[in-house]
């Protein structure tokens, strides 16, 4: 027995020696260095960081430790850790819009010197929006993009084709199409399926969806117009007919959705979409890669287009909606004003200013490694990673997508929808000012939830949001907020 035990132990030791990355494989420049990363729970986003971290450890010796906290607590944990100097987190992976508050507090390392010395990151291959908007604050690069985010409209091409319908161009058309296909069996299981699937759960992602609906009605004169405030006074542009109509349309989509849509987050609606139960759906870029994964019932049956627009837009002076014309909607196509919303902006990474210099160097090198085309061009084609394309080489070349399992037509359609959004001159920016999470998560989200639940009227909800946003602006300082908001709108494609 003892002999067998010793024999087994020896074999295990031998195996571990063979399997452990050796000093010869690693250059060892970061031996003993530990980089602590905090992000949302995996496998989405976090899972690929762990995988790439293991590769990086093998290459450099630096240990990449990934900790996960619930999405709703992520920013606060990072802010509290970095502000109080706890130094338990070296890298935070979160929405770039949230990071402005961190940069404003002097908590984030300026990455310009690192990028200047980096000949592998190929910055010019990163799409201009992500390179110049997502990664920068006041002209300096503080963030490394790991994921490119836009919300798009997905539709079941087979279902719409059979019904003789075209993908909707406006939200009214969206409701019309949804009503016509609602109740059909779309996955062959004998059960009636849903015309529309849009997450509406509180404390989840519904506040992104409502902004996607509102953007086309609120913003028509280009990205620099913004959808939230008057840049000079920081008076909220929310209590008006455009946002009111957006709230009403968003609620109306629920008529053609699952019965418990009010308690469904993005994970729930994605499950339904991949299971073939949704005719129309709003999502980030994830549905494309998820549609080709094993178990999907919508492989080569799903199309993507730019988010629906509006034939009426906000007249800021009166707060009323006016019909689109050449003056009010200079970027309209066939009388429809589109404003694709850069919801969330994408998962980006920031390095703590308080970390040791060696850790900061290792952290940047790891983030650069993840961002480089050799790695990211593979990662974005896998649905489970949660990463969506953000490099030109990912958006313009279908070969990696076809290799991953897309048909040529599906890949071209999917990437085309992202390019249409990304290159749109009227693209709507997400919040990029201090308190971004409070404006949305603390004020917009509960008021929207109360309206959807029928607790309050849309007018009450918009009044409350206006009041809440004013309080936050006053709290952070109106002049400071106005300056940062103006700056955040100054960068366009």
């Amino acid at each position: 027995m003892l002999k067998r035990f010793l024999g087994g132990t020896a074999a295990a030791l031998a195996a571990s020696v063979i399997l452990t990355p050796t000093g010869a494989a690693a250059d060892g420049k970061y031996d003993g260095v530990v980089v602590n990363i905090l992000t949302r729970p995996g496998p989405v986003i976090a899972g690929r960081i762990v995988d790439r971290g293991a590769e990086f450890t093998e290459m450099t010796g630096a240990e990449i430790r990934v900790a996960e906290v619930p999405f709703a607590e992520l920013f606060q944990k990072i802010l509290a850790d970095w502000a109080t100097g706890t130094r338990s987190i070296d890298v935070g992976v979160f929405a770039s819009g949230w990071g402005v508050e961190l940069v404003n507090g002097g908590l984030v390392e300026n990455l310009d010197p690192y990028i200047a010395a980096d000949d592998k990151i190929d910055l010019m291959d990163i799409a201009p929006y992500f390179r110049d908007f997502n990664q920068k604050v006041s002209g300096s690069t503080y963030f490394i993009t790991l994921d490119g985010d836009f919300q798009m409209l997905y539709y079941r091409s087979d279902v719409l084709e059979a019904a003789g319908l075209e993908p909707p161009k406006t939200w009214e058309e969206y409701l019309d199409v949804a009503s016509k296909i609602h109740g059909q069996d779309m996955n062959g299981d004998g059960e009636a399926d849903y015309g529309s699937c849009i997450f509406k759960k509180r404390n989840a992602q519904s506040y992104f969806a409502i902004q996607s609906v509102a953007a086309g009605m609120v913003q028509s004169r280009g990205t620099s117009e913004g959808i939230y405030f008057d840049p000079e006074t920081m008076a909220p542009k929310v209590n008006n007919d455009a946002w009111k109509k957006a709230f009403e349309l968003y609620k109306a989509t629920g008529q053609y959705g699952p019965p418990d849509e009010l308690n469904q987050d993005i994970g729930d609606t994605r499950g339904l979409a991949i299971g073939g139960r949704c005719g129309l759906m709003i999502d980030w870029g994830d549905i494309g890669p998820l549609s080709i994964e094993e178990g999907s019932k919508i492989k080569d049956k799903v199309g993507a287009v730019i988010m629906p627009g509006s034939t009426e837009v906000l007249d800021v002076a009166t707060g009323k909606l006016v019909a689109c014309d050449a003056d009010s909607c200079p970027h309209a196509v066939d009388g429809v004003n589109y404003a694709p919303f850069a919801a969330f902006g994408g998962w980006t990474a920031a390095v703590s200013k308080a970390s040791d210099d060696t850790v900061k160097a290792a952290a940047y090198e790891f983030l650069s490694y993840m961002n480089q085309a050799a790695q990211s061009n593979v990662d974005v084609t896998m649905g489970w990673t949660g990463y969506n394309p953000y490099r030109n080489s990912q958006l313009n070349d279908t070969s990696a997508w076809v290799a991953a399992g897309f048909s040529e037509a599906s890949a071209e359609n999917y990437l085309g929808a992202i390019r249409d959004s990304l290159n749109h001159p009227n693209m709507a920016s997400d919040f990029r000012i201090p308190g971004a999470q409070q404006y949305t998560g603390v004020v917009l989200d509960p008021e929207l939830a109360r309206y959807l639940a029928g607790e309050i009227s849309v007018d009450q909800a918009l009044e409350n949001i206006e009041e809440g946003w004013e309080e936050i602006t006053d709290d952070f300082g109106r002049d400071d907020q106005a300056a940062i908001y103006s700056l955040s709108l100054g960068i366009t494609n």
Partner: protein
Amino acid sequence: MSRNSALNEWLDKNMGRIFLAPAVTLILIFSIFPLIASLILAFARVRFTGGGFKVRFAGWRNFDKQLFGSEQFHLLGTFTEISVPGWLFGLLATGGLVWWMVRYVRSRFTWFGFIGRLITFAMALGLSWMFAATLLSGNPFGTVGTTLFYVIVGCGIQFVIGTALAFACSQTIRGSTYFRVIFFVPMMITPIGVGYIFRMMADTTKGPFANVWQWVGLGEFAWAADPWAARVFIIVADSWQWIPFVFIMMLAAFESVPRDLGEAAEIDGASRWQSFWEITWPHVLPIAATVMLIRAIEAFKIVDLPNIMTSGGPGIATESVSLQAYYAWRALDLGQASAIAYILLFITVVICVSFFNLVVLARVRNQR
């Protein structure tokens, strides 16, 4: 006197304090300090920034926002016009409370008792009008109303079922030991686990019981989209978890009742109901009151189940005061979170102390 004997004498004199010191220190660090720190935060605005955080005095602003300002709807409810039933209830409650105070003042007045009752009076009056203006006037509840619903209805159900099960298991019936273990299991599961279990079970479209829901004709019903259905389902989950607590405590109480008293009553010709009501119940009443008090204090702090099952939705229909404080804390609004926590502390203390003094102790005194 030698140095040793002086030291021994000092030790003898102070040994009690020395033994208590570690416990007192720990209590100061982990209970008293956070209590004081959160009290300070309740009157402040906190901003995290480079080099730490900035705290500035905000006076009563945090409380004002919750009780009278932009967050009033969230904490107390939405107040518009009071309906006729609302007015009737409010006036009846006011009349009853005034009569109660007048009766006390006329019967046995002490300043200590009067101030205590005045606080109870103010709290009861406020809550009565809150219900009159929200629930009875067709306006949405705030988190205080939702929390009281969890406490009153939830604890009531748990007490009745738990006590009935305990009484049944205290009898000499076959398999009672087996049931004692089974009934106790839910309490050992973490509330987050309970939340996810019930959330899955209630999913009528893709949950494990989807077919059952379809079969009973509720396949298209979304319990989480209806405010009252969602609240009720949270109470169902909460009861499933906490009935065992009531059960185990009340079982011990029932088993502590001397059997010879029951036997004597039986010989004297008492029915089973008389035996229970006249002998068993008075015996277990102090324990039952304590159980309810502990359970009510816990129920006031309910946070896990609404957070997991509904995220406080639909709207804010299932959000408790603790969950509201947690959401504020999660947004790093430490001032608001502390203010909400202190409001909850005040409500909990007043209601629980009033319940114990005016209901339980009064009955115990009457029995003596």
